[in-house]
Protein backbone atom coordinates (compact mmCIF):
# COMPACT_ATOMS: atom_id res chain seq x y z
CA UNK A 1 0.00 0.00 0.00
CA UNK A 2 1.47 3.34 -0.97
CA UNK A 3 2.06 6.06 1.57
CA UNK A 4 -0.72 8.43 0.39
CA UNK A 5 -3.30 5.63 0.54
CA UNK A 6 -2.06 4.69 4.00
CA UNK A 7 -2.54 8.26 5.21
CA UNK A 8 -6.03 8.39 3.71
CA UNK A 9 -6.92 5.13 5.42
CA UNK A 10 -5.48 6.36 8.71
CA UNK A 11 -7.56 9.55 8.61
CA UNK A 12 -10.67 7.53 7.78
CA UNK A 13 -10.02 5.24 10.75
CA UNK A 14 -9.70 8.21 13.10
CA UNK A 15 -12.82 9.94 11.75
CA UNK A 16 -14.79 6.69 12.03
CA UNK A 17 -13.60 5.96 15.57
CA UNK A 18 -14.40 9.45 16.82
CA UNK A 19 -17.79 9.46 15.08
CA UNK A 20 -18.49 6.07 16.67
CA UNK A 21 -17.81 7.51 20.14
CA UNK A 22 -20.20 10.42 19.48
CA UNK A 23 -22.81 8.09 17.98
CA UNK A 24 -22.57 5.82 21.01
CA UNK A 25 -23.26 8.77 23.29
CA UNK A 26 -26.32 9.76 21.26
CA UNK A 27 -27.72 6.25 20.78
CA UNK A 28 -27.38 5.52 24.46
CA UNK A 29 -29.47 8.55 25.35
CA UNK A 30 -32.05 8.11 22.62
CA UNK A 31 -32.66 4.48 23.62
CA UNK A 32 -33.12 5.58 27.20
CA UNK A 33 -35.59 8.28 26.23
CA UNK A 34 -37.59 5.95 23.98
CA UNK A 35 -37.76 2.80 26.08
CA UNK A 36 -37.39 4.01 29.64
CA UNK A 37 -40.23 3.94 32.13
CA UNK A 38 -41.57 7.42 32.79
CA UNK A 39 -41.84 8.75 36.29
CA UNK A 40 -42.52 12.25 37.62
CA UNK A 41 -40.29 13.73 40.33
CA UNK A 42 -41.07 17.07 41.99
CA UNK A 43 -38.17 19.50 41.93
CA UNK A 44 -36.84 21.23 45.00
CA UNK A 45 -34.73 24.38 44.67
CA UNK A 46 -30.96 24.19 44.87
CA UNK A 47 -28.50 27.07 45.02
CA UNK A 48 -27.35 27.62 41.46
CA UNK A 49 -23.66 27.45 40.72
CA UNK A 50 -21.81 29.00 37.82
CA UNK A 51 -20.26 26.64 35.31
CA UNK A 52 -18.87 27.28 31.88
CA UNK A 53 -21.20 24.90 30.11
CA UNK A 54 -23.71 27.51 29.09
CA UNK A 55 -26.97 28.48 30.74
CA UNK A 56 -28.27 25.65 32.83
CA UNK A 57 -30.27 25.16 36.02
CA UNK A 58 -29.38 22.98 38.96
CA UNK A 59 -32.28 20.76 39.93
CA UNK A 60 -32.79 19.09 43.26
CA UNK A 61 -35.12 16.30 44.19
CA UNK A 62 -36.49 14.91 47.40
CA UNK A 63 -34.92 11.61 46.43
CA UNK A 64 -31.43 13.12 46.50
CA UNK A 65 -31.49 12.63 50.26
CA UNK A 66 -30.97 8.94 50.96
CA UNK A 67 -30.58 8.32 54.67
CA UNK A 68 -30.03 4.59 54.46
CA UNK A 69 -26.94 4.35 52.20
CA UNK A 70 -24.66 1.39 52.97
CA UNK A 71 -21.83 2.21 55.33
CA UNK A 72 -18.30 3.08 54.11
CA UNK A 73 -19.37 4.13 50.65
CA UNK A 74 -16.76 6.30 48.96
CA UNK A 75 -17.47 9.42 47.00
CA UNK A 76 -18.46 8.72 43.37
CA UNK A 77 -19.28 5.06 44.08
CA UNK A 78 -22.40 3.62 42.52
CA UNK A 79 -25.41 3.01 44.73
CA UNK A 80 -28.81 1.73 43.66
CA UNK A 81 -31.74 3.49 45.28
CA UNK A 82 -35.17 1.89 45.42
CA UNK A 83 -38.14 4.21 45.17
CA UNK A 84 -41.67 3.21 45.96
CA UNK A 85 -45.13 4.67 45.90
CA UNK A 86 -48.30 2.99 46.99
CA UNK A 87 -50.78 4.82 44.80
CA UNK A 88 -50.54 6.79 41.56
CA UNK A 89 -51.32 10.05 43.36
CA UNK A 90 -48.39 9.74 45.70
CA UNK A 91 -44.93 11.04 45.07
CA UNK A 92 -42.11 8.53 44.75
CA UNK A 93 -40.10 8.31 47.93
CA UNK A 94 -36.92 6.53 48.92
CA UNK A 95 -37.45 3.04 50.30
CA UNK A 96 -33.95 1.57 50.35
CA UNK A 97 -30.44 1.59 48.95
CA UNK A 98 -28.04 -1.15 47.91
CA UNK A 99 -24.62 -1.61 46.33
CA UNK A 100 -25.94 -3.84 43.55
CA UNK A 101 -28.99 -3.80 41.34
CA UNK A 102 -31.96 -5.34 43.14
CA UNK A 103 -33.97 -7.66 40.94
CA UNK A 104 -37.63 -8.65 40.83
CA UNK A 105 -39.48 -5.52 41.76
CA UNK A 106 -43.18 -4.97 41.40
CA UNK A 107 -44.61 -1.89 39.64
CA UNK A 108 -44.85 -0.10 43.01
CA UNK A 109 -41.09 0.12 42.98
CA UNK A 110 -38.45 1.46 40.66
CA UNK A 111 -34.67 1.45 40.95
CA UNK A 112 -32.47 4.42 40.12
CA UNK A 113 -28.71 4.20 39.66
CA UNK A 114 -27.01 6.86 41.71
CA UNK A 115 -23.60 8.31 42.48
CA UNK A 116 -22.83 8.65 46.16
CA UNK A 117 -21.60 12.12 47.05
CA UNK A 118 -21.42 12.51 50.80
CA UNK A 119 -23.41 11.48 53.85
CA UNK A 120 -26.92 10.94 52.54
CA UNK A 121 -26.62 12.81 49.23
CA UNK A 122 -26.99 10.83 46.01
CA UNK A 123 -27.06 12.19 42.47
CA UNK A 124 -28.75 10.37 39.58
CA UNK A 125 -27.46 12.32 36.58
CA UNK A 126 -30.67 14.37 36.31
CA UNK A 127 -29.61 17.27 38.48
CA UNK A 128 -28.87 19.70 35.69
CA UNK A 129 -30.91 20.94 32.79
CA UNK A 130 -29.71 23.11 29.95
CA UNK A 131 -32.22 25.76 29.03
CA UNK A 132 -32.65 28.14 26.12
CA UNK A 133 -31.16 31.58 26.65
CA UNK A 134 -33.02 33.68 29.16
CA UNK A 135 -35.19 30.92 30.57
CA UNK A 136 -32.94 30.07 33.48
CA UNK A 137 -34.18 32.67 35.93
CA UNK A 138 -37.82 31.88 35.27
CA UNK A 139 -37.33 28.18 35.85
CA UNK A 140 -35.38 28.73 39.04
CA UNK A 141 -38.20 30.94 40.28
CA UNK A 142 -40.71 28.19 39.53
CA UNK A 143 -38.50 25.70 41.34
CA UNK A 144 -38.41 27.97 44.39
CA UNK A 145 -42.21 28.15 44.33
CA UNK A 146 -42.28 24.37 44.14
CA UNK A 147 -44.23 24.41 40.89
CA UNK A 148 -41.72 22.42 38.88
CA UNK A 149 -41.41 18.68 38.35
CA UNK A 150 -39.25 16.57 36.09
CA UNK A 151 -40.46 13.92 33.70
CA UNK A 152 -37.79 11.25 33.92
CA UNK A 153 -37.23 8.14 31.83
CA UNK A 154 -35.62 5.20 33.64
CA UNK A 155 -34.36 1.99 32.08
CA UNK A 156 -34.01 -1.46 33.63
CA UNK A 157 -30.45 -0.79 34.74
CA UNK A 158 -31.52 2.25 36.68
CA UNK A 159 -30.12 4.89 34.31
CA UNK A 160 -32.24 8.02 34.36
CA UNK A 161 -32.60 10.93 31.98
CA UNK A 162 -34.83 14.01 31.96
CA UNK A 163 -37.42 13.82 29.24
CA UNK A 164 -39.02 17.13 30.01
CA UNK A 165 -40.07 19.59 32.68
CA UNK A 166 -43.60 19.83 34.07
CA UNK A 167 -44.98 23.19 35.15
CA UNK A 168 -48.24 23.21 37.10
CA UNK A 169 -49.08 19.74 35.87
CA UNK A 170 -48.45 20.48 32.19
CA UNK A 171 -45.47 19.12 30.37
CA UNK A 172 -43.22 21.85 29.00
CA UNK A 173 -39.78 21.66 27.50
CA UNK A 174 -40.30 18.13 26.33
CA UNK A 175 -37.66 17.67 23.72
CA UNK A 176 -37.77 15.14 20.94
CA UNK A 177 -34.90 12.67 21.23
CA UNK A 178 -33.49 13.90 17.94
Amino acid at each position, binding site marked *: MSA*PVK*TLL*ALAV*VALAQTAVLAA*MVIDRVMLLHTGREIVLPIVPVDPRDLF*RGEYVRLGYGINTVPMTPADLHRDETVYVVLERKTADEDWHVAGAARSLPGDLNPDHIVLKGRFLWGGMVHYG*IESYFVPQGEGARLEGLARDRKLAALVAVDKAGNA*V*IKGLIVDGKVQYEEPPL
Partner: protein
Amino acid sequence: MSYRTKIERDLARWQSAGWLSDSGAAAIRADLAARRPAFGAAAGLAMLGAVLFGFAVVSFVAANWDGMSKLARILLLVGALWACYGGAAFLFARRLGAFAHAAVVAGIAVYGASIWLIAQAYHMEGNPPDAMLLWALGALLAAAVVRSPAALAAAFVLLTVWTSWERSESERAHMVFLAPWAAAVATAAWLRWRPGRHLAALSLAVWLVPLGFLVLDRHAHWLVVATGVAVALATSMAAPAIERWIGAAQAIFAYAVAVAFSGLFIMQVVEDINLFSTAHRLSTGQFGALAALTLALLTGAMFRALATGNRGALWVGYIAFTIEIFTIYARMLGTLLNTSLFFMIAALIVTVMAWAAYRLHRHETPVAEPAA
Protein backbone atom coordinates in the same frame (compact mmCIF):
# COMPACT_ATOMS: atom_id res chain seq x y z
CA MET B 1 18.10 42.83 8.68
CA SER B 2 17.12 39.75 6.80
CA TYR B 3 19.09 36.52 6.74
CA ARG B 4 19.88 37.10 3.05
CA THR B 5 21.51 40.46 3.71
CA LYS B 6 23.50 39.11 6.65
CA ILE B 7 24.75 36.11 4.76
CA GLU B 8 25.78 38.28 1.80
CA ARG B 9 27.91 40.38 4.11
CA ASP B 10 29.42 37.28 5.71
CA LEU B 11 30.14 35.72 2.32
CA ALA B 12 31.92 38.86 1.17
CA ARG B 13 33.97 38.92 4.38
CA TRP B 14 34.93 35.24 4.13
CA GLN B 15 35.86 35.60 0.48
CA SER B 16 38.11 38.56 1.09
CA ALA B 17 39.77 36.62 3.97
CA GLY B 18 40.49 33.83 1.53
CA TRP B 19 38.46 31.19 3.37
CA LEU B 20 35.83 30.88 0.63
CA SER B 21 36.44 30.38 -3.07
CA ASP B 22 34.32 31.96 -5.78
CA SER B 23 32.74 28.62 -6.66
CA GLY B 24 32.01 27.99 -2.98
CA ALA B 25 30.25 31.32 -2.63
CA ALA B 26 28.26 30.68 -5.79
CA ALA B 27 27.21 27.26 -4.50
CA ILE B 28 26.03 28.75 -1.21
CA ARG B 29 24.02 31.45 -2.98
CA ALA B 30 22.44 28.86 -5.26
CA ASP B 31 21.49 26.67 -2.29
CA LEU B 32 19.87 29.61 -0.51
CA ALA B 33 17.92 30.55 -3.59
CA ALA B 34 16.57 27.00 -3.84
CA ARG B 35 15.40 26.98 -0.22
CA ARG B 36 12.71 29.60 -0.52
CA PRO B 37 10.65 30.11 2.61
CA ALA B 38 7.58 27.91 2.75
CA PHE B 39 5.22 30.75 3.53
CA GLY B 40 4.94 33.47 0.95
CA ALA B 41 2.40 36.27 0.90
CA ALA B 42 -0.14 34.13 -0.92
CA ALA B 43 -0.08 31.40 1.72
CA GLY B 44 -0.31 34.00 4.48
CA LEU B 45 -3.40 35.62 2.95
CA ALA B 46 -4.93 32.21 2.37
CA MET B 47 -4.46 31.37 6.05
CA LEU B 48 -6.06 34.66 7.05
CA GLY B 49 -8.97 33.98 4.74
CA ALA B 50 -9.38 30.50 6.23
CA VAL B 51 -9.41 31.89 9.77
CA LEU B 52 -12.03 34.51 8.84
CA PHE B 53 -14.14 31.85 7.18
CA GLY B 54 -13.83 29.72 10.28
CA PHE B 55 -15.08 32.57 12.47
CA ALA B 56 -17.98 33.19 10.07
CA VAL B 57 -19.05 29.57 10.34
CA VAL B 58 -18.74 29.53 14.13
CA SER B 59 -20.76 32.76 14.47
CA PHE B 60 -23.49 31.39 12.22
CA VAL B 61 -23.71 28.20 14.21
CA ALA B 62 -23.75 30.03 17.53
CA ALA B 63 -26.56 32.31 16.34
CA ASN B 64 -28.75 29.47 15.12
CA TRP B 65 -27.79 26.69 17.51
CA ASP B 66 -30.83 26.95 19.73
CA GLY B 67 -33.22 26.69 16.82
CA MET B 68 -31.75 23.48 15.51
CA SER B 69 -33.15 20.07 16.33
CA LYS B 70 -30.86 17.65 18.11
CA LEU B 71 -30.46 15.69 14.89
CA ALA B 72 -29.42 18.77 12.96
CA ARG B 73 -26.84 19.65 15.60
CA ILE B 74 -25.38 16.15 15.65
CA LEU B 75 -25.18 16.03 11.85
CA LEU B 76 -23.51 19.43 11.82
CA LEU B 77 -20.89 18.35 14.35
CA VAL B 78 -20.15 15.05 12.65
CA GLY B 79 -20.04 16.86 9.29
CA ALA B 80 -17.51 19.33 10.66
CA LEU B 81 -15.46 16.44 12.03
CA TRP B 82 -15.31 14.66 8.66
CA ALA B 83 -14.64 17.97 6.90
CA CYS B 84 -11.55 18.50 9.06
CA TYR B 85 -10.15 15.04 8.42
CA GLY B 86 -11.15 15.25 4.77
CA GLY B 87 -9.31 18.54 4.56
CA ALA B 88 -6.31 16.88 6.15
CA ALA B 89 -6.42 14.11 3.55
CA PHE B 90 -6.56 16.70 0.78
CA LEU B 91 -3.64 18.64 2.25
CA PHE B 92 -1.54 15.51 2.76
CA ALA B 93 -2.14 14.59 -0.88
CA ARG B 94 -0.97 18.05 -1.92
CA ARG B 95 2.13 17.50 0.25
CA LEU B 96 1.27 20.47 2.47
CA GLY B 97 2.31 18.62 5.62
CA ALA B 98 2.18 21.52 8.08
CA PHE B 99 -1.34 22.54 7.04
CA ALA B 100 -2.47 18.93 7.00
CA HIS B 101 -1.41 18.38 10.61
CA ALA B 102 -3.17 21.62 11.52
CA ALA B 103 -6.33 20.16 9.98
CA VAL B 104 -5.90 17.01 12.08
CA VAL B 105 -5.65 19.12 15.23
CA ALA B 106 -8.76 21.02 14.12
CA GLY B 107 -10.50 17.65 13.81
CA ILE B 108 -9.49 16.76 17.35
CA ALA B 109 -10.82 20.12 18.55
CA VAL B 110 -14.17 19.51 16.81
CA TYR B 111 -14.28 16.03 18.37
CA GLY B 112 -13.80 17.48 21.84
CA ALA B 113 -16.33 20.24 21.28
CA SER B 114 -18.80 17.62 20.01
CA ILE B 115 -18.48 15.56 23.17
CA TRP B 116 -19.30 18.59 25.31
CA LEU B 117 -22.10 19.86 23.07
CA ILE B 118 -23.81 16.46 22.82
CA ALA B 119 -23.53 16.08 26.59
CA GLN B 120 -25.20 19.45 26.93
CA ALA B 121 -27.94 18.66 24.38
CA TYR B 122 -28.92 15.55 26.32
CA HIS B 123 -28.48 17.10 29.77
CA MET B 124 -25.83 14.53 30.58
CA GLU B 125 -24.36 14.69 34.01
CA GLY B 126 -21.88 12.29 35.46
CA ASN B 127 -18.17 12.79 35.80
CA PRO B 128 -16.97 15.66 33.53
CA PRO B 129 -13.31 14.60 33.67
CA ASP B 130 -14.37 11.38 31.92
CA ALA B 131 -15.18 13.49 28.87
CA MET B 132 -11.61 14.80 28.96
CA LEU B 133 -10.31 11.23 28.93
CA LEU B 134 -12.50 10.38 25.92
CA TRP B 135 -11.13 13.44 24.19
CA ALA B 136 -7.52 12.66 25.09
CA LEU B 137 -7.83 9.07 23.85
CA GLY B 138 -9.27 10.33 20.56
CA ALA B 139 -6.27 12.61 20.18
CA LEU B 140 -3.91 9.76 21.01
CA LEU B 141 -5.54 7.56 18.39
CA ALA B 142 -5.10 10.28 15.79
CA ALA B 143 -1.46 10.72 16.81
CA ALA B 144 -0.68 7.02 16.50
CA VAL B 145 -2.67 6.15 13.37
CA VAL B 146 -2.00 9.30 11.32
CA ARG B 147 1.51 9.66 12.77
CA SER B 148 0.87 13.23 13.81
CA PRO B 149 3.17 14.83 16.40
CA ALA B 150 0.78 17.78 16.68
CA ALA B 151 -2.03 15.41 17.70
CA LEU B 152 0.33 13.80 20.21
CA ALA B 153 1.10 17.18 21.74
CA ALA B 154 -2.64 17.74 22.08
CA ALA B 155 -2.99 14.29 23.67
CA PHE B 156 -0.36 15.09 26.32
CA VAL B 157 -2.04 18.39 27.15
CA LEU B 158 -5.49 16.79 27.35
CA LEU B 159 -4.21 13.95 29.54
CA THR B 160 -2.63 16.47 31.92
CA VAL B 161 -5.87 18.47 32.12
CA TRP B 162 -7.78 15.22 32.67
CA THR B 163 -5.69 14.12 35.62
CA SER B 164 -5.63 17.58 37.20
CA TRP B 165 -9.41 17.92 36.91
CA GLU B 166 -10.11 14.41 38.17
CA ARG B 167 -7.82 14.96 41.16
CA SER B 168 -9.43 18.28 42.05
CA GLU B 169 -12.85 16.58 42.11
CA SER B 170 -12.06 13.28 43.79
CA GLU B 171 -8.95 14.29 45.78
CA ARG B 172 -7.44 10.89 45.10
CA ALA B 173 -4.02 10.03 43.71
CA HIS B 174 -5.33 9.00 40.28
CA MET B 175 -2.59 6.53 39.51
CA VAL B 176 -4.49 5.39 36.42
CA PHE B 177 -3.06 8.44 34.69
CA LEU B 178 0.13 6.46 34.20
CA ALA B 179 -1.54 3.99 31.82
CA PRO B 180 -2.58 6.38 29.01
CA TRP B 181 0.54 8.43 29.74
CA ALA B 182 2.69 5.38 29.02
CA ALA B 183 0.75 4.79 25.80
CA ALA B 184 1.42 8.39 24.76
CA VAL B 185 5.11 8.00 25.57
CA ALA B 186 5.24 4.80 23.53
CA THR B 187 3.62 6.67 20.64
CA ALA B 188 6.21 9.45 20.94
CA ALA B 189 8.98 6.86 20.81
CA TRP B 190 7.35 5.10 17.86
CA LEU B 191 7.03 8.41 15.97
CA ARG B 192 10.63 9.17 16.87
CA TRP B 193 9.45 12.62 17.87
CA ARG B 194 12.09 14.12 20.14
CA PRO B 195 10.04 17.03 21.61
CA GLY B 196 7.62 14.30 22.72
CA ARG B 197 10.10 13.32 25.41
CA HIS B 198 9.94 16.80 26.89
CA LEU B 199 6.14 16.75 26.84
CA ALA B 200 6.20 13.32 28.47
CA ALA B 201 8.57 14.50 31.21
CA LEU B 202 6.60 17.72 31.74
CA SER B 203 3.24 15.99 32.04
CA LEU B 204 4.70 13.39 34.40
CA ALA B 205 6.28 16.13 36.50
CA VAL B 206 2.95 17.99 36.69
CA TRP B 207 1.35 14.74 37.84
CA LEU B 208 4.12 13.90 40.33
CA VAL B 209 4.48 17.17 42.23
CA PRO B 210 0.97 17.28 43.81
CA LEU B 211 1.14 13.57 44.66
CA GLY B 212 2.37 14.37 48.14
CA PHE B 213 -1.00 15.97 48.92
CA LEU B 214 -2.94 12.92 47.77
CA VAL B 215 -1.29 9.80 49.17
CA LEU B 216 -0.53 8.35 52.61
CA ASP B 217 -1.06 11.03 55.23
CA ARG B 218 -1.62 13.65 52.52
CA HIS B 219 1.61 15.40 53.48
CA ALA B 220 3.94 12.88 51.88
CA HIS B 221 6.00 15.35 49.87
CA TRP B 222 9.17 13.51 50.84
CA LEU B 223 7.96 10.89 48.33
CA VAL B 224 8.10 13.45 45.54
CA VAL B 225 11.53 14.65 46.64
CA ALA B 226 12.84 11.08 46.92
CA THR B 227 11.51 10.23 43.46
CA GLY B 228 13.18 13.29 41.96
CA VAL B 229 16.47 12.59 43.67
CA ALA B 230 16.37 8.90 42.73
CA VAL B 231 15.76 9.65 39.06
CA ALA B 232 18.48 12.32 39.07
CA LEU B 233 20.95 9.88 40.63
CA ALA B 234 19.96 7.15 38.19
CA THR B 235 20.49 9.38 35.17
CA SER B 236 23.82 10.49 36.57
CA MET B 237 25.16 7.04 37.20
CA ALA B 238 23.71 5.22 34.20
CA ALA B 239 23.78 8.03 31.67
CA PRO B 240 25.17 6.04 28.71
CA ALA B 241 22.64 3.25 29.15
CA ILE B 242 19.76 5.69 29.50
CA GLU B 243 20.97 7.66 26.54
CA ARG B 244 20.91 4.48 24.47
CA TRP B 245 17.51 3.22 25.55
CA ILE B 246 15.51 6.38 26.16
CA GLY B 247 17.69 9.25 25.11
CA ALA B 248 17.59 12.73 26.61
CA ALA B 249 19.38 11.64 29.79
CA GLN B 250 20.37 15.26 30.42
CA ALA B 251 16.81 16.53 30.04
CA ILE B 252 15.52 13.82 32.39
CA PHE B 253 18.13 14.88 34.93
CA ALA B 254 16.95 18.47 34.69
CA TYR B 255 13.28 17.54 35.13
CA ALA B 256 14.14 15.26 38.07
CA VAL B 257 15.94 18.11 39.81
CA ALA B 258 12.96 20.39 39.16
CA VAL B 259 10.54 17.83 40.65
CA ALA B 260 12.72 17.27 43.72
CA PHE B 261 13.00 21.01 44.29
CA SER B 262 9.23 21.44 43.85
CA GLY B 263 8.67 18.89 46.60
CA LEU B 264 11.13 20.65 48.90
CA PHE B 265 9.57 24.00 48.11
CA ILE B 266 6.13 22.68 49.03
CA MET B 267 7.51 21.40 52.30
CA GLN B 268 9.16 24.69 53.15
CA VAL B 269 6.53 27.15 51.97
CA VAL B 270 3.12 25.65 51.20
CA GLU B 271 3.04 23.36 54.21
CA ASP B 272 4.51 26.09 56.39
CA ILE B 273 1.68 28.50 55.87
CA ASN B 274 -0.84 28.59 58.65
CA LEU B 275 -4.23 29.71 57.40
CA PHE B 276 -5.44 30.94 60.76
CA SER B 277 -2.44 32.84 62.08
CA THR B 278 0.81 34.35 60.94
CA ALA B 279 2.86 31.83 62.91
CA HIS B 280 4.86 29.27 60.99
CA ARG B 281 4.00 25.59 61.07
CA LEU B 282 7.61 24.53 60.78
CA SER B 283 10.01 25.27 63.61
CA THR B 284 13.17 27.20 62.76
CA GLY B 285 15.17 24.01 63.19
CA GLN B 286 12.95 22.04 60.81
CA PHE B 287 12.98 24.83 58.27
CA GLY B 288 16.74 25.25 58.57
CA ALA B 289 17.28 21.53 58.00
CA LEU B 290 15.07 21.52 54.92
CA ALA B 291 16.72 24.64 53.55
CA ALA B 292 20.18 23.23 54.10
CA LEU B 293 19.14 19.98 52.42
CA THR B 294 17.69 21.90 49.48
CA LEU B 295 20.82 23.98 49.00
CA ALA B 296 23.04 20.93 49.29
CA LEU B 297 21.03 18.99 46.69
CA LEU B 298 20.92 21.96 44.34
CA THR B 299 24.63 22.58 44.68
CA GLY B 300 25.34 18.95 43.94
CA ALA B 301 23.01 19.02 40.94
CA MET B 302 24.64 22.15 39.57
CA PHE B 303 28.14 20.75 39.94
CA ARG B 304 26.99 17.66 38.11
CA ALA B 305 25.39 19.84 35.42
CA LEU B 306 28.62 21.79 35.01
CA ALA B 307 30.63 18.61 34.70
CA THR B 308 28.38 17.19 32.00
CA GLY B 309 27.66 20.44 30.19
CA ASN B 310 23.95 20.11 30.95
CA ARG B 311 22.69 23.60 30.19
CA GLY B 312 19.05 22.81 30.95
CA ALA B 313 19.81 21.39 34.38
CA LEU B 314 22.09 24.33 35.11
CA TRP B 315 19.28 26.75 34.45
CA VAL B 316 16.88 24.72 36.58
CA GLY B 317 19.53 24.91 39.28
CA TYR B 318 19.99 28.67 38.96
CA ILE B 319 16.27 29.35 39.14
CA ALA B 320 15.66 26.92 41.98
CA PHE B 321 18.64 28.30 43.91
CA THR B 322 17.31 31.83 43.54
CA ILE B 323 13.84 30.81 44.68
CA GLU B 324 15.34 29.02 47.66
CA ILE B 325 17.38 32.07 48.63
CA PHE B 326 14.26 34.22 48.52
CA THR B 327 12.37 31.63 50.55
CA ILE B 328 15.03 31.65 53.23
CA TYR B 329 15.16 35.42 53.21
CA ALA B 330 11.40 35.67 53.58
CA ARG B 331 11.47 33.27 56.48
CA MET B 332 14.40 34.90 58.25
CA LEU B 333 13.12 38.44 57.84
CA GLY B 334 13.16 38.92 61.59
CA THR B 335 16.77 38.19 62.45
CA LEU B 336 18.85 40.60 60.43
CA LEU B 337 22.29 39.62 61.66
CA ASN B 338 21.78 35.95 60.88
CA THR B 339 20.39 36.95 57.51
CA SER B 340 23.47 38.85 56.50
CA LEU B 341 25.74 36.04 57.68
CA PHE B 342 23.68 33.59 55.70
CA PHE B 343 23.90 35.66 52.53
CA MET B 344 27.64 35.92 52.99
CA ILE B 345 27.88 32.14 53.05
CA ALA B 346 25.58 31.85 50.05
CA ALA B 347 27.71 34.37 48.14
CA LEU B 348 30.83 32.32 48.97
CA ILE B 349 29.23 29.14 47.67
CA VAL B 350 28.18 30.82 44.43
CA THR B 351 31.64 32.28 43.97
CA VAL B 352 33.20 28.86 44.40
CA MET B 353 30.80 27.48 41.83
CA ALA B 354 31.63 30.27 39.39
CA TRP B 355 35.31 29.44 39.78
CA ALA B 356 34.56 25.76 39.24
CA ALA B 357 32.55 26.59 36.13
CA TYR B 358 35.42 28.69 34.79
CA ARG B 359 37.95 25.91 35.40
CA LEU B 360 35.71 23.28 33.82
CA HIS B 361 35.00 25.33 30.73
CA ARG B 362 38.67 26.04 30.20
CA HIS B 363 39.00 22.48 28.94
CA GLU B 364 36.50 21.88 26.17
CA THR B 365 33.51 20.42 27.91
CA PRO B 366 31.86 17.68 25.84
CA VAL B 367 28.07 17.85 25.58
CA ALA B 368 27.59 14.13 26.22
CA GLU B 369 28.98 12.06 29.06
CA PRO B 370 32.78 11.65 28.66
CA ALA B 371 33.68 8.17 27.49
CA ALA B 372 36.49 7.62 30.02
